């Protein structure tokens, strides 16, 4: 079965990203396909490579990046929500005249159409938020 995953909260403040990660991992272990993980609202903050959590706690960005590498997941960060909150890739940074970017490996920035598409193509769309 094809799952789409929507994450609407940032790392640490709410458990939503943790739950979405555990669900995604369990779905892959059961042989399901993850069509896309879409990060919206504060969820975009999961995709910054500047995260430096304490060494004895989980690193949510690394968790997602590694899971994506292992299973060729499509991790998409909403461009409008990300700009509002300060998550940029190199080309967005350049366009906005910013001197740095912070997107993490394995994440790509795209439009909200990618979320609607996930709703259309996936058999089930799972929403993780607050």
């Amino acid at each position, binding site marked *: *079965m094809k*799952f789409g995953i929507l994450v*609407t909260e940032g790392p640490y403040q709410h*458990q*939503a990203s943790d*739950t979405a990660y*555990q*669900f995604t*991992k*369990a*779905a892959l*272990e*059961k042989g*399901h396909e993850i069509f896309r993980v879409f990060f919206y609202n504060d969820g975009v903050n999961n995709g910054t490579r500047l995260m430096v959590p304490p060494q004895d706690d989980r690193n949510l960005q690394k968790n997602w990046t590694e899971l994506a590498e292992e299973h060729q997941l499509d991790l998409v960060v909403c461009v409008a929500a990300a700009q509002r909150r300060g998550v940029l890739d190199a080309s967005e940074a350049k366009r906005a005249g910013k001197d740095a970017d912070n997107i993490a490996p394995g994440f790509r920035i795209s439009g909200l159409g990618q979320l609607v598409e996930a709703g259309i193509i996936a058999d*089930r*769309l*799972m*929403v*993780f*938020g*607050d």
Partner: protein
Amino acid sequence: MSTLHTVSNSPFENNAFKSCLDHVTAGDTILLIEDSVVGARKAGSFGKEIGKALANCRVCALAPDLSARGIAADTVLDGIELVDYGGFVDLAAEHERTQAWL
């Protein structure tokens, strides 16, 4: 045509659980995740509400979320089924749609 409803906020703090109960259809399943599992305790004041839901729905709770909040399996309301993340995936696959009550 059944639906898996997920609730994540505590019923003591937030009305999402109550609103879910108000809109559930007979044959649906409610899965308690994250902070909502604190409502699953047998001795808590929310038990009666869940009891009513159990009359026409299945109610499940995510076991790792219960453990994290120190809620032992034998203190959970009778009739609530415990599942792990794999069980959550199975529930999502078995139902035709999922509705998150945020």
